[in-house]
Protein backbone atom coordinates (compact mmCIF):
# COMPACT_ATOMS: atom_id res chain seq x y z
CA UNK A 1 0.00 0.00 0.00
CA UNK A 2 1.32 3.43 -0.84
CA UNK A 3 2.10 5.78 2.00
CA UNK A 4 -0.86 7.95 2.99
CA UNK A 5 0.52 11.45 3.35
CA UNK A 6 0.19 15.03 2.21
CA UNK A 7 3.95 15.53 2.35
CA UNK A 8 5.02 17.39 -0.76
CA UNK A 9 1.71 16.74 -2.50
CA UNK A 10 0.35 20.29 -2.54
CA UNK A 11 1.69 23.81 -2.46
CA UNK A 12 0.51 27.23 -1.42
CA UNK A 13 0.67 29.15 -4.69
CA UNK A 14 -0.82 32.45 -3.57
CA UNK A 15 -1.32 34.52 -0.46
CA UNK A 16 -3.53 37.53 0.10
CA UNK A 17 -4.81 39.80 2.80
CA UNK A 18 -6.74 43.01 3.22
CA UNK A 19 -5.58 46.10 5.03
CA UNK A 20 -5.65 45.18 8.72
CA UNK A 21 -7.72 47.41 11.01
CA UNK A 22 -8.37 47.86 14.69
CA UNK A 23 -11.76 46.40 15.52
CA UNK A 24 -14.56 48.61 14.33
CA UNK A 25 -12.38 50.60 11.93
CA UNK A 26 -12.87 48.70 8.69
CA UNK A 27 -14.73 50.84 6.16
CA UNK A 28 -15.68 47.62 4.39
CA UNK A 29 -18.19 44.95 5.34
CA UNK A 30 -16.80 41.64 6.55
CA UNK A 31 -17.89 39.79 3.40
CA UNK A 32 -16.25 42.41 1.21
CA UNK A 33 -13.04 41.89 3.17
CA UNK A 34 -13.28 38.17 2.45
CA UNK A 35 -13.69 38.86 -1.27
CA UNK A 36 -10.69 41.21 -1.29
CA UNK A 37 -8.46 38.63 0.40
CA UNK A 38 -9.54 35.83 -1.94
CA UNK A 39 -8.95 37.98 -5.02
CA UNK A 40 -5.55 39.06 -3.68
CA UNK A 41 -4.49 35.44 -3.18
CA UNK A 42 -5.56 34.57 -6.75
CA UNK A 43 -3.74 37.59 -8.15
CA UNK A 44 -0.61 36.62 -6.23
CA UNK A 45 -0.81 33.09 -7.65
CA UNK A 46 -1.49 34.29 -11.17
CA UNK A 47 -4.68 32.24 -11.28
CA UNK A 48 -8.06 33.40 -12.59
CA UNK A 49 -10.41 33.58 -9.56
CA UNK A 50 -13.06 31.78 -11.62
CA UNK A 51 -10.81 28.72 -11.57
CA UNK A 52 -11.11 28.44 -7.79
CA UNK A 53 -13.29 25.44 -7.04
CA UNK A 54 -13.22 25.19 -3.27
CA UNK A 55 -13.24 27.13 0.00
CA UNK A 56 -12.14 25.98 3.44
CA UNK A 57 -12.40 27.99 6.64
CA UNK A 58 -12.67 27.71 10.42
CA UNK A 59 -13.79 29.58 13.52
CA UNK A 60 -17.40 29.68 12.29
CA UNK A 61 -16.50 32.12 9.54
CA UNK A 62 -19.60 33.98 8.39
CA UNK A 63 -18.48 34.34 4.76
CA UNK A 64 -20.04 31.19 3.41
CA UNK A 65 -18.44 29.27 0.56
CA UNK A 66 -21.57 29.30 -1.58
CA UNK A 67 -21.96 33.07 -1.29
CA UNK A 68 -18.31 33.55 -2.21
CA UNK A 69 -18.72 31.20 -5.17
CA UNK A 70 -21.79 33.07 -6.39
CA UNK A 71 -20.31 36.52 -5.84
CA UNK A 72 -17.11 35.63 -7.68
CA UNK A 73 -18.81 33.79 -10.55
CA UNK A 74 -16.95 30.57 -9.73
CA UNK A 75 -17.59 28.12 -12.56
CA UNK A 76 -18.00 25.04 -10.40
CA UNK A 77 -17.83 24.60 -6.61
CA UNK A 78 -16.33 21.20 -5.77
CA UNK A 79 -15.32 21.60 -2.15
CA UNK A 80 -16.74 23.62 0.76
CA UNK A 81 -15.58 22.98 4.26
CA UNK A 82 -15.92 24.47 7.73
CA UNK A 83 -13.66 23.19 10.47
CA UNK A 84 -15.36 22.82 13.86
CA UNK A 85 -14.19 24.77 16.86
CA UNK A 86 -13.84 28.39 17.81
CA UNK A 87 -10.95 30.78 17.53
CA UNK A 88 -7.82 30.02 15.58
CA UNK A 89 -7.55 26.36 16.53
CA UNK A 90 -8.51 25.51 12.96
CA UNK A 91 -6.15 27.77 11.04
CA UNK A 92 -3.77 25.02 9.93
CA UNK A 93 -6.68 22.62 9.60
CA UNK A 94 -8.31 24.85 7.00
CA UNK A 95 -5.15 24.67 4.91
CA UNK A 96 -4.94 20.92 5.57
CA UNK A 97 -8.55 20.39 4.52
CA UNK A 98 -7.94 22.37 1.36
CA UNK A 99 -4.82 20.27 0.79
CA UNK A 100 -6.67 17.00 1.35
CA UNK A 101 -9.32 18.05 -1.16
CA UNK A 102 -6.70 18.94 -3.75
CA UNK A 103 -4.59 15.85 -3.23
CA UNK A 104 -7.55 13.48 -3.28
CA UNK A 105 -8.84 14.92 -6.52
CA UNK A 106 -12.03 16.31 -4.99
CA UNK A 107 -10.96 19.77 -6.12
CA UNK A 108 -8.13 21.47 -7.97
CA UNK A 109 -7.70 24.95 -6.64
CA UNK A 110 -8.90 25.64 -3.11
CA UNK A 111 -8.87 28.81 -1.03
CA UNK A 112 -8.29 28.52 2.73
CA UNK A 113 -9.32 31.79 4.36
CA UNK A 114 -10.54 33.68 7.38
CA UNK A 115 -12.57 36.88 7.36
CA UNK A 116 -13.32 38.58 10.62
CA UNK A 117 -14.66 42.00 11.44
CA UNK A 118 -15.13 41.94 15.18
CA UNK A 119 -16.20 45.54 15.08
CA UNK A 120 -19.26 44.58 13.02
CA UNK A 121 -20.25 41.57 15.11
CA UNK A 122 -19.71 40.31 18.64
CA UNK A 123 -16.28 40.90 20.14
CA UNK A 124 -14.47 37.86 21.50
CA UNK A 125 -13.22 39.67 24.56
CA UNK A 126 -16.70 40.32 25.93
CA UNK A 127 -18.94 37.91 27.73
CA UNK A 128 -21.96 36.85 25.72
CA UNK A 129 -25.07 38.87 26.49
CA UNK A 130 -27.35 36.00 27.47
CA UNK A 131 -29.89 35.75 30.28
CA UNK A 132 -29.21 32.09 30.93
CA UNK A 133 -25.98 30.20 30.25
CA UNK A 134 -26.38 26.72 28.78
CA UNK A 135 -24.12 23.69 28.34
CA UNK A 136 -20.63 24.11 29.77
CA UNK A 137 -21.25 27.79 30.28
CA UNK A 138 -23.94 27.08 32.91
CA UNK A 139 -21.10 26.01 35.20
CA UNK A 140 -18.79 28.89 34.26
CA UNK A 141 -20.64 32.14 33.42
CA UNK A 142 -22.38 32.57 36.82
CA UNK A 143 -18.89 32.60 38.40
CA UNK A 144 -17.68 35.36 36.09
CA UNK A 145 -15.69 33.00 33.85
CA UNK A 146 -16.78 34.15 30.40
CA UNK A 147 -14.03 35.48 28.13
CA UNK A 148 -11.29 33.56 26.30
CA UNK A 149 -8.64 35.06 28.62
CA UNK A 150 -10.54 33.64 31.57
CA UNK A 151 -11.20 30.29 29.91
CA UNK A 152 -7.49 29.66 29.50
CA UNK A 153 -5.98 31.46 32.50
CA UNK A 154 -6.10 28.50 34.88
CA UNK A 155 -4.20 26.27 32.45
CA UNK A 156 -1.42 28.85 32.46
CA UNK A 157 -1.46 29.28 36.24
CA UNK A 158 -1.16 25.54 36.73
CA UNK A 159 1.63 25.07 34.16
CA UNK A 160 3.72 28.09 35.14
CA UNK A 161 3.41 27.28 38.85
CA UNK A 162 4.25 23.60 38.37
CA UNK A 163 7.35 24.39 36.31
CA UNK A 164 8.46 27.58 38.06
CA UNK A 165 8.32 29.61 34.85
CA UNK A 166 8.48 33.36 35.36
CA UNK A 167 6.26 36.00 33.80
CA UNK A 168 9.34 37.43 32.06
CA UNK A 169 9.27 34.44 29.68
CA UNK A 170 5.84 35.57 28.51
CA UNK A 171 7.03 39.15 28.25
CA UNK A 172 9.70 38.03 25.76
CA UNK A 173 7.02 36.39 23.61
CA UNK A 174 4.97 39.61 23.55
CA UNK A 175 8.00 41.77 22.87
CA UNK A 176 9.17 39.61 19.95
CA UNK A 177 5.85 40.14 18.17
CA UNK A 178 5.88 43.89 18.80
CA UNK A 179 9.53 44.15 17.76
CA UNK A 180 8.85 42.49 14.41
CA UNK A 181 5.76 44.61 13.78
CA UNK A 182 7.88 47.77 13.81
CA UNK A 183 9.28 46.94 10.36
CA UNK A 184 5.99 45.60 8.96
CA UNK A 185 3.84 48.36 7.44
CA UNK A 186 0.86 45.95 7.33
CA UNK A 187 0.94 45.61 11.11
CA UNK A 188 -1.72 47.32 13.18
CA UNK A 189 0.96 47.97 15.84
CA UNK A 190 3.45 49.38 13.29
CA UNK A 191 4.98 52.45 14.91
CA UNK A 192 3.85 51.39 18.38
CA UNK A 193 6.82 49.63 19.98
CA UNK A 194 6.62 47.80 23.28
CA UNK A 195 9.23 48.19 26.00
CA UNK A 196 9.77 46.12 29.13
CA UNK A 197 8.65 49.09 31.19
CA UNK A 198 5.45 49.54 29.20
CA UNK A 199 4.69 45.84 29.48
CA UNK A 200 5.36 45.72 33.22
CA UNK A 201 3.20 48.80 33.82
CA UNK A 202 0.27 47.51 31.79
CA UNK A 203 -2.93 46.65 33.60
CA UNK A 204 -3.97 43.20 34.65
CA UNK A 205 -6.54 41.48 32.52
CA UNK A 206 -6.35 38.32 34.63
CA UNK A 207 -3.87 37.68 37.43
CA UNK A 208 -1.44 36.00 37.81
CA UNK A 209 -0.13 35.83 34.20
CA UNK A 210 -2.25 37.92 31.80
CA UNK A 211 -1.35 41.57 31.54
CA UNK A 212 -2.80 43.66 28.70
CA UNK A 213 0.13 42.91 26.39
CA UNK A 214 -0.16 39.15 26.95
CA UNK A 215 -3.51 39.26 25.15
CA UNK A 216 -4.17 39.39 21.41
CA UNK A 217 -5.84 42.28 19.67
CA UNK A 218 -9.34 42.37 18.27
CA UNK A 219 -9.23 43.31 14.59
CA UNK A 220 -11.07 43.63 11.30
CA UNK A 221 -9.69 42.11 8.11
CA UNK A 222 -9.32 38.96 6.05
CA UNK A 223 -6.57 36.67 4.82
CA UNK A 224 -6.47 33.86 2.28
CA UNK A 225 -4.12 31.31 0.72
CA UNK A 226 -4.55 29.38 -2.52
CA UNK A 227 -3.75 25.65 -2.44
CA UNK A 228 -2.94 23.75 -5.66
CA UNK A 229 -1.35 20.40 -6.58
CA UNK A 230 2.43 20.45 -6.18
CA UNK A 231 3.16 19.88 -9.86
CA UNK A 232 0.98 22.81 -10.89
CA UNK A 233 2.75 25.18 -8.47
CA UNK A 234 6.00 24.84 -10.43
CA UNK A 235 4.50 26.72 -13.39
CA UNK A 236 3.20 29.64 -11.33
CA UNK A 237 4.96 32.97 -10.68
CA UNK A 238 6.28 32.37 -7.15
CA UNK A 239 8.76 29.93 -5.71
CA UNK A 240 6.46 27.14 -4.49
CA UNK A 241 6.01 26.51 -0.78
CA UNK A 242 5.10 22.89 -0.11
CA UNK A 243 3.03 21.43 2.68
CA UNK A 244 5.30 18.97 4.47
CA UNK A 245 3.18 17.93 7.41
CA UNK A 246 -0.04 18.81 9.14
CA UNK A 247 -2.36 17.46 11.82
CA UNK A 248 -5.43 18.51 13.75
CA UNK A 249 -7.50 17.32 16.68
CA UNK A 250 -6.77 16.98 20.36
CA UNK A 251 -5.50 14.40 22.83
CA UNK A 252 -7.62 12.25 25.15
CA UNK A 253 -10.75 14.15 26.25
CA UNK A 254 -9.18 17.55 25.67
CA UNK A 255 -12.70 18.98 25.45
CA UNK A 256 -13.95 17.31 28.64
CA UNK A 257 -16.57 19.65 30.10
CA UNK A 258 -16.06 22.20 32.88
CA UNK A 259 -12.25 22.13 32.78
CA UNK A 260 -12.01 18.34 33.27
CA UNK A 261 -9.48 17.50 30.53
CA UNK A 262 -7.21 14.86 32.12
CA UNK A 263 -4.10 16.68 30.87
CA UNK A 264 -5.39 20.08 31.95
CA UNK A 265 -2.38 22.40 31.77
CA UNK A 266 -2.04 21.82 28.04
CA UNK A 267 -2.45 23.60 24.72
CA UNK A 268 -3.87 20.27 23.43
CA UNK A 269 -1.05 19.60 20.96
CA UNK A 270 0.67 16.46 22.34
CA UNK A 271 -0.78 14.05 19.76
CA UNK A 272 -1.28 16.69 17.06
CA UNK A 273 2.37 17.75 17.13
CA UNK A 274 3.52 14.13 17.09
CA UNK A 275 1.37 13.37 14.05
CA UNK A 276 2.48 16.52 12.26
CA UNK A 277 6.21 15.80 12.74
CA UNK A 278 5.65 12.21 11.65
CA UNK A 279 4.05 13.29 8.39
CA UNK A 280 6.70 15.95 7.81
CA UNK A 281 9.52 13.49 8.63
CA UNK A 282 11.02 16.40 10.50
CA UNK A 283 11.32 17.60 14.06
CA UNK A 284 11.55 20.96 15.83
CA UNK A 285 15.33 20.96 15.34
CA UNK A 286 14.80 21.22 11.57
CA UNK A 287 12.67 24.38 11.72
CA UNK A 288 14.17 27.72 10.69
CA UNK A 289 11.28 30.03 11.61
CA UNK A 290 8.30 29.51 13.93
CA UNK A 291 4.91 31.19 13.70
CA UNK A 292 3.15 30.44 17.00
CA UNK A 293 -0.41 31.67 17.35
CA UNK A 294 -0.81 34.01 20.27
CA UNK A 295 -4.27 34.23 21.75
CA UNK A 296 -2.41 34.69 25.01
CA UNK A 297 1.34 34.50 25.59
CA UNK A 298 0.90 31.65 28.07
CA UNK A 299 -0.67 29.59 25.30
CA UNK A 300 2.38 30.21 23.12
CA UNK A 301 4.58 28.81 25.88
CA UNK A 302 2.46 25.64 26.12
CA UNK A 303 2.37 25.31 22.35
CA UNK A 304 6.16 25.66 22.01
CA UNK A 305 6.67 23.06 24.73
CA UNK A 306 4.26 20.57 23.19
CA UNK A 307 5.80 20.92 19.72
CA UNK A 308 9.22 20.25 21.22
CA UNK A 309 10.68 23.73 20.70
CA UNK A 310 11.11 24.55 24.38
CA UNK A 311 12.02 22.38 27.36
CA UNK A 312 9.91 23.63 30.28
CA UNK A 313 12.91 23.19 32.57
CA UNK A 314 14.85 25.67 30.45
CA UNK A 315 11.99 28.01 29.53
CA UNK A 316 13.19 30.87 31.74
CA UNK A 317 16.64 30.83 30.12
CA UNK A 318 15.51 30.14 26.56
CA UNK A 319 12.57 32.50 26.25
CA UNK A 320 14.53 35.73 26.16
CA UNK A 321 13.94 38.35 23.49
CA UNK A 322 17.19 37.93 21.54
CA UNK A 323 16.50 34.23 20.93
CA UNK A 324 13.15 35.03 19.31
CA UNK A 325 14.19 37.77 16.89
CA UNK A 326 14.85 37.61 13.16
CA UNK A 327 17.29 37.36 11.55
CA UNK A 328 19.82 36.00 14.03
CA UNK A 329 17.87 34.60 17.01
CA UNK A 330 18.10 30.90 17.83
CA UNK A 331 14.37 30.54 17.14
CA UNK A 332 12.98 33.51 15.18
CA UNK A 333 9.29 33.62 16.02
CA UNK A 334 6.24 35.54 14.86
CA UNK A 335 8.35 37.44 12.39
CA UNK A 336 5.55 39.63 11.02
CA UNK A 337 4.19 40.61 14.43
CA UNK A 338 1.72 37.78 14.84
CA UNK A 339 -1.69 38.07 16.40
CA UNK A 340 -0.41 40.44 19.04
CA UNK A 341 1.01 43.10 16.78
CA UNK A 342 0.42 42.43 13.07
CA UNK A 343 -3.24 41.48 13.15
CA UNK A 344 -5.46 39.05 14.96
CA UNK A 345 -6.63 37.38 11.77
CA UNK A 346 -7.05 34.11 13.65
CA UNK A 347 -3.58 33.05 12.56
CA UNK A 348 -4.18 33.20 8.80
CA UNK A 349 -1.68 36.08 8.74
CA UNK A 350 0.87 33.59 10.13
CA UNK A 351 0.39 31.20 7.21
CA UNK A 352 0.97 34.13 4.87
CA UNK A 353 4.09 35.06 6.80
CA UNK A 354 5.38 31.49 6.65
CA UNK A 355 5.05 31.61 2.85
CA UNK A 356 6.79 35.00 2.67
CA UNK A 357 9.71 33.67 4.74
CA UNK A 358 10.11 30.69 2.38
CA UNK A 359 9.88 32.94 -0.68
CA UNK A 360 12.45 35.30 0.82
CA UNK A 361 10.11 38.30 0.79
CA UNK A 362 9.40 38.82 4.51
CA UNK A 363 9.80 42.15 6.31
CA UNK A 364 12.04 40.50 8.87
CA UNK A 365 13.63 37.94 6.60
CA UNK A 366 15.53 35.04 8.13
CA UNK A 367 18.42 34.11 5.79
CA UNK A 368 17.45 31.27 3.41
CA UNK A 369 14.93 29.38 5.53
CA UNK A 370 13.83 25.99 4.25
CA UNK A 371 11.30 24.96 6.89
CA UNK A 372 8.70 27.10 8.67
CA UNK A 373 6.23 25.80 11.24
CA UNK A 374 2.84 27.36 11.91
CA UNK A 375 1.39 26.39 15.28
CA UNK A 376 -2.33 27.12 15.32
CA UNK A 377 -4.45 28.53 18.12
CA UNK A 378 -3.51 26.84 21.41
CA UNK A 379 -5.72 25.73 24.33
CA UNK A 380 -8.94 25.54 22.34
CA UNK A 381 -9.87 22.17 20.91
CA UNK A 382 -9.55 20.94 18.21
CA UNK A 383 -6.16 22.50 17.48
CA UNK A 384 -4.03 22.23 14.33
CA UNK A 385 -0.51 22.86 13.08
CA UNK A 386 1.43 22.64 9.85
CA UNK A 387 4.96 22.70 8.45
CA UNK A 388 5.84 24.25 5.10
CA UNK A 389 9.07 23.89 3.20
CA UNK A 390 10.91 24.85 0.05
CA UNK A 391 11.62 22.49 -2.84
CA UNK A 392 14.92 21.57 -1.18
CA UNK A 393 13.04 19.83 1.63
CA UNK A 394 11.16 17.42 -0.62
Amino acid at each position, binding site marked *: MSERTLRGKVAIAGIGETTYYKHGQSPDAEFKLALQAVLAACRDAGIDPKEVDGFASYGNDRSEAVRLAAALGIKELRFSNMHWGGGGGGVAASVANAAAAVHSGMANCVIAFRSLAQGQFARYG*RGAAVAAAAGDDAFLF*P*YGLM*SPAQRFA*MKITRFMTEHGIRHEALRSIAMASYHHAQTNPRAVMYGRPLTEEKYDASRWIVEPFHRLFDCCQENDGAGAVLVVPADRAKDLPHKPTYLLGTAQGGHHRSAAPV*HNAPDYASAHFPTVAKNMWAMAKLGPQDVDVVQAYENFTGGVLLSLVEHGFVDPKKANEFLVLENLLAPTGRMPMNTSGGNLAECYMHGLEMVNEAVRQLRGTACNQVPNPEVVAVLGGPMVTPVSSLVLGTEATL
Partner: protein
Amino acid sequence: MSNALPPGLPAPAQEPVAKPYWEGTRAGKLVIQRCKGCGAHQWGPEWVCHRCHSFDLGWEEVAPRGRIWSWQRPHHPVHPALSGFGPYTIVLVELPDAGNVRMVGNLLCEPTAPVEIGAEVEAVFEPHDEADPPYTLVQWRLKG
Protein backbone atom coordinates in the same frame (compact mmCIF):
# COMPACT_ATOMS: atom_id res chain seq x y z
CA MET B 1 -23.84 36.84 53.73
CA SER B 2 -23.54 38.64 50.41
CA ASN B 3 -22.94 36.83 47.17
CA ALA B 4 -19.50 36.39 45.63
CA LEU B 5 -20.34 38.48 42.56
CA PRO B 6 -22.74 41.35 41.83
CA PRO B 7 -26.25 40.60 40.51
CA GLY B 8 -26.89 40.60 36.77
CA LEU B 9 -24.60 37.84 35.53
CA PRO B 10 -26.22 35.11 33.41
CA ALA B 11 -28.10 32.52 35.45
CA PRO B 12 -27.38 28.85 34.79
CA ALA B 13 -29.85 27.20 32.43
CA GLN B 14 -30.89 24.20 34.48
CA GLU B 15 -30.89 21.75 31.59
CA PRO B 16 -32.28 18.20 31.79
CA VAL B 17 -28.84 16.54 31.64
CA ALA B 18 -27.84 18.40 34.82
CA LYS B 19 -31.16 18.50 36.69
CA PRO B 20 -30.15 16.33 39.70
CA TYR B 21 -27.14 18.59 40.29
CA TRP B 22 -29.27 21.72 40.44
CA GLU B 23 -31.86 20.03 42.64
CA GLY B 24 -29.06 18.91 44.94
CA THR B 25 -27.56 22.36 45.33
CA ARG B 26 -30.99 23.75 46.30
CA ALA B 27 -30.96 21.23 49.17
CA GLY B 28 -27.38 22.12 50.14
CA LYS B 29 -25.94 18.94 48.70
CA LEU B 30 -23.17 18.37 46.15
CA VAL B 31 -24.54 15.74 43.77
CA ILE B 32 -22.61 14.65 40.68
CA GLN B 33 -22.82 11.98 38.01
CA ARG B 34 -21.61 8.47 38.76
CA CYS B 35 -21.92 5.66 36.26
CA LYS B 36 -24.01 2.73 37.47
CA GLY B 37 -22.18 0.50 35.02
CA CYS B 38 -18.54 1.05 35.96
CA GLY B 39 -18.60 3.40 38.92
CA ALA B 40 -16.73 6.26 37.25
CA HIS B 41 -17.49 9.76 38.51
CA GLN B 42 -18.14 12.25 35.73
CA TRP B 43 -18.24 16.04 35.60
CA GLY B 44 -19.61 18.06 33.80
CA PRO B 45 -22.73 16.11 33.14
CA GLU B 46 -23.10 14.12 29.92
CA TRP B 47 -25.60 11.60 28.59
CA VAL B 48 -23.12 8.72 28.40
CA CYS B 49 -20.31 7.44 30.58
CA HIS B 50 -17.01 8.36 28.92
CA ARG B 51 -15.37 5.20 30.30
CA CYS B 52 -17.81 2.31 29.64
CA HIS B 53 -20.44 3.97 27.38
CA SER B 54 -23.32 3.08 29.68
CA PHE B 55 -26.30 5.40 29.46
CA ASP B 56 -27.32 4.34 32.95
CA LEU B 57 -25.74 7.24 34.77
CA GLY B 58 -26.66 7.68 38.39
CA TRP B 59 -26.16 10.65 40.68
CA GLU B 60 -24.36 10.50 43.99
CA GLU B 61 -23.92 12.92 46.83
CA VAL B 62 -20.23 13.60 47.41
CA ALA B 63 -18.38 15.28 50.27
CA PRO B 64 -18.47 19.06 49.68
CA ARG B 65 -14.73 19.48 49.93
CA GLY B 66 -11.75 19.57 47.62
CA ARG B 67 -8.32 20.96 46.75
CA ILE B 68 -7.44 23.95 44.63
CA TRP B 69 -6.14 22.63 41.29
CA SER B 70 -5.66 26.05 39.74
CA TRP B 71 -6.89 29.61 40.07
CA GLN B 72 -7.22 33.04 38.44
CA ARG B 73 -8.15 36.54 39.45
CA PRO B 74 -9.92 38.51 36.68
CA HIS B 75 -9.56 42.29 36.77
CA HIS B 76 -10.94 43.32 33.39
CA PRO B 77 -14.75 43.35 33.47
CA VAL B 78 -16.12 41.32 30.56
CA HIS B 79 -19.78 41.74 31.45
CA PRO B 80 -21.74 44.91 32.35
CA ALA B 81 -22.63 43.38 35.74
CA LEU B 82 -18.93 43.33 36.61
CA SER B 83 -18.13 46.96 35.68
CA GLY B 84 -16.50 48.71 38.60
CA PHE B 85 -16.30 45.45 40.53
CA GLY B 86 -13.32 43.23 41.00
CA PRO B 87 -10.84 41.76 40.98
CA TYR B 88 -12.49 38.53 42.04
CA THR B 89 -11.11 35.03 42.42
CA ILE B 90 -12.03 31.91 40.44
CA VAL B 91 -10.80 28.48 41.49
CA LEU B 92 -10.73 25.10 39.82
CA VAL B 93 -11.34 22.62 42.61
CA GLU B 94 -10.46 18.93 42.44
CA LEU B 95 -12.72 16.59 44.43
CA PRO B 96 -10.62 13.74 45.89
CA ASP B 97 -13.78 12.02 47.15
CA ALA B 98 -15.23 11.83 43.63
CA GLY B 99 -12.52 10.46 41.37
CA ASN B 100 -10.73 13.84 41.25
CA VAL B 101 -13.29 15.45 38.97
CA ARG B 102 -13.00 19.23 38.94
CA MET B 103 -15.49 22.05 39.49
CA VAL B 104 -15.27 25.78 38.85
CA GLY B 105 -16.40 28.32 41.44
CA ASN B 106 -15.43 31.53 43.19
CA LEU B 107 -13.08 31.46 46.15
CA LEU B 108 -14.61 33.55 48.92
CA CYS B 109 -11.63 35.69 49.93
CA GLU B 110 -10.21 39.18 49.87
CA PRO B 111 -9.24 40.24 46.33
CA THR B 112 -5.59 40.48 47.40
CA ALA B 113 -5.44 37.21 49.35
CA PRO B 114 -2.71 34.83 48.20
CA VAL B 115 -4.03 31.63 46.62
CA GLU B 116 -2.18 28.36 46.74
CA ILE B 117 -2.55 25.37 44.46
CA GLY B 118 -3.24 22.35 46.64
CA ALA B 119 -4.98 24.29 49.43
CA GLU B 120 -7.98 22.50 50.95
CA VAL B 121 -11.36 24.12 50.44
CA GLU B 122 -14.97 23.43 51.38
CA ALA B 123 -18.15 24.21 49.50
CA VAL B 124 -20.43 27.12 50.41
CA PHE B 125 -23.92 27.00 48.93
CA GLU B 126 -25.00 30.40 47.61
CA PRO B 127 -28.76 30.54 47.02
CA HIS B 128 -30.26 32.86 44.41
CA ASP B 129 -33.86 32.65 45.65
CA GLU B 130 -34.99 35.77 43.79
CA ALA B 131 -34.15 34.26 40.40
CA ASP B 132 -36.87 32.69 38.27
CA PRO B 133 -36.38 29.78 38.45
CA PRO B 134 -34.32 30.00 41.66
CA TYR B 135 -30.91 28.32 41.71
CA THR B 136 -28.00 27.79 44.05
CA LEU B 137 -24.33 28.18 43.14
CA VAL B 138 -21.50 26.26 44.75
CA GLN B 139 -18.74 28.55 46.02
CA TRP B 140 -15.60 27.66 47.94
CA ARG B 141 -13.73 28.88 51.00
CA LEU B 142 -10.43 27.83 52.53
CA LYS B 143 -10.86 25.12 55.13
CA GLY B 144 -10.44 26.74 58.54
